[in-house]
């Protein structure tokens, strides 16, 4: 599996993503600078976490229009798998590859902690290694993570089964108490229509090694390798 990580000015999880990808694929991903127009052939493109362009204007707004994104959008529309983590999710939303917006957390605080997520479906390239309804532990680290979409969009997302992960308690219960940031419907991650683009605020790559106190995130990357080999 060939993967690429897009590096924006202000990305700070690009190397974490590269470590997790190399552990799963056996080879390092191509690190592609945002100003490049060329993107090597890739089975998976990762938009990493961080604070691209200092979160100026709106988180992800500038990065969504950087030169490399034209190519990323083209590949995504052609079916290449794209994974946006944290700031990467914000970029995907601003680029309109995913619906909705990530707004300021309801608490107005930057939140950095491990959270529980419920895996909503397992028949996608990203979640094949998980069990349906499985509760996993990923890390969040964001100030603009409150997922907002209008009622009509939410209805469509729910109806089409496009919610990938929801914030939940350790038992898998969804509710306001398990919602760290005010996201509508406790949404932590969503798919595009074809389920080839996934954006999520929590960081799978931060809990992808026993030394990092958890390995739930690693299954996303090994699952991707397996789905692409199948």
């Amino acid at each position, binding site marked *: 599996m060939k993967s690429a990580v897009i590096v924006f000015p202000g990305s700070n999880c690009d190397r974490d993503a590269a470590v997790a990808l190399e552990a799963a694929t056996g080879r390092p991903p191509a690190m592609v600078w945002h100003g490049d127009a060329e993107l090597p052939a890739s089975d998976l493109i990762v938009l990493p976490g961080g604070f691209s362009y200092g979160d100026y204007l709106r988180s992800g707004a500038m990065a969504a229009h950087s030169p490399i994104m034209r190519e990323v959008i083209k590949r995504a529309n052609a079916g290449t798998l794209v994974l946006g983590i944290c700031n990467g999710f914000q970029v995907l939303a601003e680029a309109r590859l995913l619906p909705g*917006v990530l*707004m300021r957390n309801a608490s*107005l605080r930057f939140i950095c902690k491990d959270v529980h997520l419920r895996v909503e479906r397992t028949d996608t390239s990203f979640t094949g290694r998980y069990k349906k309804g499985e509760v996993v532990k990923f890390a969040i680290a964001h100030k603009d993570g409150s997922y907002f979409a209008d009622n009509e969009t939410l209805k469509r997302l729910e109806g089409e089964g496009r919610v990938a992960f929801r914030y939940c308690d350790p038992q898998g219960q969804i509710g306001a108490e398990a919602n760290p940031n005010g996201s509508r419907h406790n949404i932590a991650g969503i798919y595009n229509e074809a389920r080839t683009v996934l954006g999520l605020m929590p960081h799978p790559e931060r809990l992808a090694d026993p030394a990092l106190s958890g390995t739930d995130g690693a299954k996303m990357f090994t699952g991707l390798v397996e789905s692409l080999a199948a």
Partner: protein
Amino acid sequence: MKARITITLKPGVLDPQGKAIEGALHALGFCSAGNVRQGKYIEVDVAEKDPARARAEVERMCKELLANTIIENYAYELEAA
């Protein structure tokens, strides 16, 4: 021409920052303050003398970058720079 662009949250979109500002105003004794909403103000010089063309240009700037029309409305005034 100079464009003075105001970007505001659409009605119904939660604005925790506006709420925090409202709380601070109340704490200062401004009991009359209510329904505080925070927005953005942006000035842009547009190298265009024809008002219609300048207007079309600013429209596109707002739609493509300056406002996220899922959650925000925009309005602007144009004046000779």
